[in-house]
């Protein structure tokens, strides 16, 4: 994938912010310098998911309006070397920034960092346009459910209309037990419907609640299944070829089920 990646979905609540936080921490732990840009102006959350909410002084809108310099708004995450957050403004709305301004900002960030990850707001309006303005690649997050997959398709169409062709799908919160029972869309079904390549599959994991409570992304937790899925996706972003099913099944539900019933 390219160095400027937007994490988007169309539908809200499918895990864009969690994904951005985990991949950002993952890339930083792999030795890369990374900036996470929250474009959800008015509804910022990347700061709390990362546990950095108490350190915000300036935000993205301050930078765009010239109230502060870019460096002043960047928050360095002391736990992970090379990880920075550019927070969204909370008391403004999406119209405070134009796609041209967002693009110029991304171009600035790109000079300083190995990776720029952009957390996109839900919806397809101005906030979405801002988020994709400077992006070269996209990770579309979906959960295996009709409304989310439908919105993902719309987003994929809009991305290609904006000439972002490097688009990868992340299937989040999959429950292999439900897939097996025939009550959840399988990975292959979702891929067939959407017609894009897969960057990874993240199993439903209760530990995500714990990690967002603590403000510590699951990617650092060796016991978390979602965390290990995010570690794999990080490696794929870095260009390593890691098989999807093998890695995620063993530690996941499928693996346990197989063991339980003696199939293997």
């Amino acid at each position, binding site marked *: 994938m390219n160095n400027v990646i937007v994490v988007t979905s169309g539908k809200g609540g499918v895990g864009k912010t969690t994904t951005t936080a985990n991949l950002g921490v993952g890339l930083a732990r792999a030795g890369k310098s990374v900036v996470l840009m929250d474009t959800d102006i008015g509804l910022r959350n990347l700061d709390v998911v990362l546990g950095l909410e108490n350190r915000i002084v300036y935000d993205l809108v301050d930078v765009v309006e010239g109230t502060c310099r870019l460096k002043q708004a960047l928050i360095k995450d002391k736990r992970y070397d090379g990880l920075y957050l550019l927070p969204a403004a909370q008391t403004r709305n999406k119209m405070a920034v134009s796609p041209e301004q967002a693009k110029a900002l991304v171009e600035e960030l790109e000079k300083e960092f190995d990776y720029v990850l952009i957390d996109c707001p839900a919806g397809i309006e101005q906030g979405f346009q801002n988020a994709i303005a400077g992006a070269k690649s996209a990770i579309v997050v979906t959960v295996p459910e009709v409304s989310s*997959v439908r919105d993902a398709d719309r987003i994929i*169409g809009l991305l*290609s209309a904006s000439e972002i062709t490097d688009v990868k799908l992340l299937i989040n919160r999959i429950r292999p037990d439900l897939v097996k029972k*025939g*009550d959840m*869309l399988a990975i292959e079904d979702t891929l*067939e419907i959407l017609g894009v390549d897969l960057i990874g599959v993240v199993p439903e994991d209760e530990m995500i609640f714990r990690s967002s409570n603590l403000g510590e992304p699951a990617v650092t937790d060796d016991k978390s299944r979602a965390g290990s899925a995010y570690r794999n996706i990080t490696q794929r972003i870095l260009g390593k070829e890691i098989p999807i099913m093998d890695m995620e099944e063993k530690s996941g539900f499928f693996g346990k089920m197989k063991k339980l019933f003696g199939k293997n």
Partner: protein
Amino acid sequence: MGLFGKRSRKSSSVAKDRLKLVLIYDRAGTSSNNEMIEMMKRDIMRVISQYIEIEEEEIDLDIKTSNNTGEGVTSELVANIPIRKVKKLGKNRYQK
């Protein structure tokens, strides 16, 4: 599900079918697909006008749903092409 002898389909395959169908419409509404329909219209016109004269401005080509069979909703390509005149299928086609 299936408790009273009536076997129902897996909900995931129902979801898959519903999605495939709804996406045909969603995609048809976007500009890239309008372009596709226009291109298709041009190609169909080119073929048909070898046999019959048609009212080019009146052609209507669209993707529609039909709900007539017991199998549920299906989608189809519906073309309405008014004929001006049927050409004489003459020598020029069969002699080749």
